[in-house]
């Protein structure tokens, strides 16, 4: 095969997974390790064509565990690295998602979510992995997760994901469902020079661990990437500020567990993104991903009928938009939570909203199908009456 | 001497499969020319009497569309 070529700047009509792959290249991704799985396979399929043309590497691993581990390895080698999979792959990656979080490794993990549990229905999308990406590994840790609702956002979120991963030295998930992954829509690709890219801070030349605060820096610490003589000491065991293993000092333990969480939460305002469109007294529909589109369509229809209905669409799922949800609930007459699953984010939303207004939940009529705007409207009217 | 029975509804067709035609040492299979319910054009036997009962077609057919019964109680080998 001759060298594949990236899509030119301009408007394209492409499926979400392809938009995501183009976004990865534009974001500076130079390493992907992956294992095929429906409905994410178009991502490795495409990146195996593109990566070597921009000096990158694509590795099809023996399984998803090897995929995330080699992506982490490549990140420590200094490359912007990613993997892409679906729920079963994320389940297998859980142990090393924790490693990435606790070693503060920049990494982008794409989960094109499919109908679960277990093998389920590979070709049908469902937002069933939204809590597993944040809480599926053992212990306390914090990741970032973005949730696109269109092929355009699949492109845009990849750039944001790599930027956040580099900026905060942490794993960042991009969480489309299979429906968006396979849907085609207009995608505007900007010229490279208009794309702002973040690069990780790298530990200054010549420093060795004892001179640095590599891990437990309360701010995000510069990363001692490999191959530059910095004698990085990276370990998934509890370690002190220099990265040195320490399994006895309670202060070190506490910091080991909490610092990588707090460095993200402290910057939550730079990370958390919502699309808020509501007024005081509205019934506010809270939604994310594919069904955020149902929410907005329903609100549009409601307003056309003169009803006070607003929306709060979560673009980041993690860190959770606690303040934004609470703010909406404070002004709202009631909150209606739409989720393309049995209500996984509901407790998190309710925890922030329930003190302020009634909270109800609406799943799709049948799991695997997305909410029809009419069904949402009907429920909103019931809530109002 | 052997009796070959074809199940044309199970066959996935000469064009798409055609394995029986490849493996028959007597070259007895050809297209039947008629589409079955599933949309495939199954094979048929040109000269059944030439069949040696070797059962290669039966063993190689991926869709259990062929049975070859040897006469005089011979067994599949």
């Amino acid at each position, binding site marked *: 095969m001759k060298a594949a070529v990236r899509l030119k700047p301009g408007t394209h009509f492409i499926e979400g997974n392809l938009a995501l792959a183009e976004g990865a290249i534009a974001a500076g991704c130079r390493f992907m390790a992956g294992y095929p799985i429906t409905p994410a396979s178009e991502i490795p399929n495409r990146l195996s064509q593109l990566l070597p043309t921009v000096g990158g590497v694509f590795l099809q691993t023996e399984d998803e565990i090897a995929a995330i581990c080699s992506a982490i390895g490549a990140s420590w080698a200094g490359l912007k690295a990613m993997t892409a999979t679906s729920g079963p792959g994320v389940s297998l990656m859980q142990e090393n998602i924790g490693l990435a979080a606790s070693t503060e490794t920049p990494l982008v993990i794409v989960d094109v979510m499919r109908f679960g549990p277990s093998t389920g229905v590979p070709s049908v999308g469902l937002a069933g992995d939204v809590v597993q990406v944040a809480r599926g590994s053992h212990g306390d840790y914090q990741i970032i997760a973005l949730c696109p609702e269109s092929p355009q956002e699949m492109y845009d979120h990849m750039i944001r994901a790599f930027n956040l991963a580099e900026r905060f030295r942490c794993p960042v998930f991009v969480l489309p469902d299979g429906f968006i992954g396979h*849907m085609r*829509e207009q995608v505007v690709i900007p010229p490279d020079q208009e794309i702002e890219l973040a690069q990780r801070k790298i530990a200054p030349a010549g420093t060795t661990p004892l001179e640095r605060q590599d891990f437990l820096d309360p701010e995000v610490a510069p990363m001692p990437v490999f191959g530059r003589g910095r004698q990085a000491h990276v370990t998934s065991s509890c370690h002190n500020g220099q990265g040195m293993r320490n399994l006895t000092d309670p202060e070190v333990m506490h910091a080991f567990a909490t610092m990588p969480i707090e460095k993200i939460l402290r910057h939550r305002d730079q990370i958390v993104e919502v699309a808020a469109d509501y007024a005081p007294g509205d019934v506010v529909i809270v939604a994310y991903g594919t069904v955020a589109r149902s929410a907005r369509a329903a609100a549009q229809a409601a307003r056309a009928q003169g009803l006070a209905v607003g929306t709060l669409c979560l673009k980041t799922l993690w860190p959770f938009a606690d303040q934004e949800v609470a703010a909406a609930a404070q002004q709202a007459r009631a909150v209606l939570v739409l989720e393309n699953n049995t209500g996984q984010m509901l407790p998190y939303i309710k925890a922030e909203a329930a003190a302020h207004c009634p909270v109800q939940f609406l799943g799709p009529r049948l799991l695997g199908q997305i909410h029809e705007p009419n069904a949402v409207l009907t429920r909103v009217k019931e809530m109002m009456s | 001497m052997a009796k070959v029975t074809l199940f044309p509804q199970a066959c996935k067709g000469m064009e798409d499969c055609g394995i029986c035609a490849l493996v028959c040492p007597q070259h007895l299979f050809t297209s039947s020319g008629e589409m079955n319910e599933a949309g495939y054009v199954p094979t048929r036997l040109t000269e059944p009497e030439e069949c040696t009962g070797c059962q290669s077609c039966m063993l190689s057919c991926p869709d259990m569309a062929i049975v070859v019964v040897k006469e005089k109680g011979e067994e599949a080998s």
Partner: protein
Amino acid sequence: MRTELTIAGVGGQGSITAGVILGAAAVTYDHQYAAQTSAYSSELRGGFAAAWVVLSEEPVLYPRVIAPDVLVAQAQDSIERFAKVLKPQGVLIYDSDMIAQPPAQITRAHPVAATSLARNEMQAAIVANMIMLGALCQVTGVVSPGALEKAIADAVPQGKQELNLRAFALGRERVG
């Protein structure tokens, strides 16, 4: 205005390709917005295949087709699956080689003998979907012919463009 279209057939008829080209034409050359989804069964033969396209002058919010304004049906199976959800005043464009009699309640039904035209006039059964696209363009005008022609040229392999464009033109002419 939001227009919902369903293009359906059996595997191998190119219904999904037609849907993709329709969306691409609208978005890339007609300054519209489009969202396109599809489904197909795993059987190589005899299964079903369908593309759904939502067209609009504004960004499409809800991306699925609920009740199509236009149904393009390439097989009897498509009628059985989708005729019942067609909007009351909806348009049906059907391959009259594959569908003998459209349901009586559909008042705006347009036949086109796509399969036989493709076989006999184009010597390429494979372009029946382009004939259907031509018919769709002619009857509904949801996307401009020029945009569709460019999108077809983009989508088909080098050397096959002329054939496909001729089939598209034929569909525009011969639709009933």
